[in-house]
């Protein structure tokens, strides 16, 4: 019995959806806009995350040691730093490496290289390049250099300078921009999603409002609440599914265009991102469409099913 009802409800919902032509089209359009907004926000989030991690990658702290600082002392500092949980990565550049890097960088600058050759010993110090897990954590890493006694040799500091203090202003500002962007992005995304859901909900409500006389007739002819409600929910689900398909297709040209235009700027090719995460994104579109469509229908129709 339940099977017969389910079959009839699905068939009737499908017929309603197909036969209401323009009305179905209107709700699909609105739903497509909603899904488009949701998917765009996922894209924006991905782009933001990619470019932020790109920037984060560029932020670091470098401790320069005085020339001739003993390597084992530096290694002591390195292993000390490695114990700090905030530290993600430490790169050691020895005096020799610093010199060859310097030569490489100034390969065209004959005069400088000549001057360098005149010096009997390597004027460049070794350095430790430290990357933190989060930009806000550089301060505590920098403090380590200020307080640690292992850093001195005969009360003379082996550290030439730590460039954190120069970078501090930039790092602080960047940290607050990143935090702000994430917070703002979240609020904005939430608001946009909410608005588009409300619009979709109102559209579906309006469509069911237009069908209220029909609902009344169905009840007078002896249809139970579930049998009246069912086809409307099926139609709502079909609107969601159609809108998800349209959105998924629309995002191919959109992401190709964005990929061509913005890859350098964002640091992420949105088309590759779309292709790589297609299944996941499509499930999100489909899920949102179906959930919004069916829940809107249920809420809208329940008003007319009370006695």
């Amino acid at each position: 019995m339940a099977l017969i009802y389910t079959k009839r409800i699905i068939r009737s919902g499908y017929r309603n959806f197909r036969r209401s032509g323009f009305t179905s089209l209107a709700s699909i359009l609105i739903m497509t806009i909603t899904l488009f907004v949701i998917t765009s926000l996922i894209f924006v989030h991905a782009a933001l995350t990619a470019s932020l991690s790109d920037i984060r990658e560029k932020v670091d702290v470098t401790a320069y040691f005085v020339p001739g600082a003993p390597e084992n002392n530096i290694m002591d500092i390195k292993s000390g730093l490695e114990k700090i949980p905030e530290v993600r990565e430490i790169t050691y550049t020895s005096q020799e490496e610093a010199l060859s890097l310097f030569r490489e960088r100034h390969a065209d600058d004959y005069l400088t290289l000549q001057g360098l050759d005149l010096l009997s010993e390597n004027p460049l110090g070794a350095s430790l390049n430290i990357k933190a897990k989060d930009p806000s954590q550089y301060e505590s890493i920098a403090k380590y250099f200020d307080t640690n006694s292992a850093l001195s040799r005969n009360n003379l500091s082996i550290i030439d300078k730590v460039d954190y203090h120069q970078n501090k202003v930039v790092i602080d500002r960047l940290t607050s921009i990143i935090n702000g962007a994430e917070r703002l992005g979240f609020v904005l995304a939430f608001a946009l999603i909410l608005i588009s859901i409300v619009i979709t909900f109102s559209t579906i409500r309006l469509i069911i409002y237009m069908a209220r006389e029909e609902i009344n007739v169905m009840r007078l002819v002896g249809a139970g609440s579930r049998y009246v409600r069912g086809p409307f929910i099926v139609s709502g689900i079909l609107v969601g599914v159609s809108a998800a398909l349209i959105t998924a297709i629309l995002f191919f040209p959109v992401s190709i265009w964005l990929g061509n235009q913005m890859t350098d700027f964002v640091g992420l090719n949105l088309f590759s991102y779309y292709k790589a995460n297609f299944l996941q994104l499509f499930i999100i579109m489909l899920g949102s469409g179906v959930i919004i469509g069916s829940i809107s229908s249920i809420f809208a129709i329940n008003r007319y099913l009370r006695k």
Partner: protein
Amino acid sequence: MIYFNNVTKRYNDNTSLEDVTIAIAPGEFVSIVGHSGAGKTTLTKLILAEESPSEGTVFFESVDIHKLSNRELTNLRRKIGVVFQDFRLLPNKTAYENIAFAMEASGKTDDQIAEDVPHVLDLVDLSHRAGHFPRQLSGGEKQRLAIARAIITQPELIIADEPTGNLDPVNTNEVVNILKKINDLGTTILLTTHNRSVIDQIKKRVITLENGRVIRDDKDGKYVI
């Protein structure tokens, strides 16, 4: 079968029905006449529980209609066929589906539906229109379709609220003849109308309403206002 016990219905300050007491026996063909606004439609809405009475009670086979739950009400409505002046067909369903809907809703099997619907379509002479939507049908065809929908579930009672209101004399005649035929087969019929020729053609019990009150109840009906 139907019993109105001192029923009064008010809409805000307007009294639509006042202290109405009527009994209708099974198998009767009762016509309710009166001017527009006399309370005819309110009466039918009370039987269908579309409206609740302000005072008094309405019984259907000794059950107080307005104390039923939603589910019980659905079952009650399956025992009543309704025909309206404005047809109230389902616009997105074909003639065939409009009739089948009532059967589907009451859980009849597909085989039963496939057997009964063509038969009823034939009865109201709409077999050639089975695949048409209501908007493609004429007024008379729509009303015949509505009657077909009302009788398909073999209800105990048919309520026809001004079924001829929108029809020309030829179609009116046809609708009245169909209703009489259904009554002859044993179904109780409650017809509201303000059409004199309809009443004179039926020659059955007539209840006359005026300003919400029953002013006449004649066994062999004439239209007297």
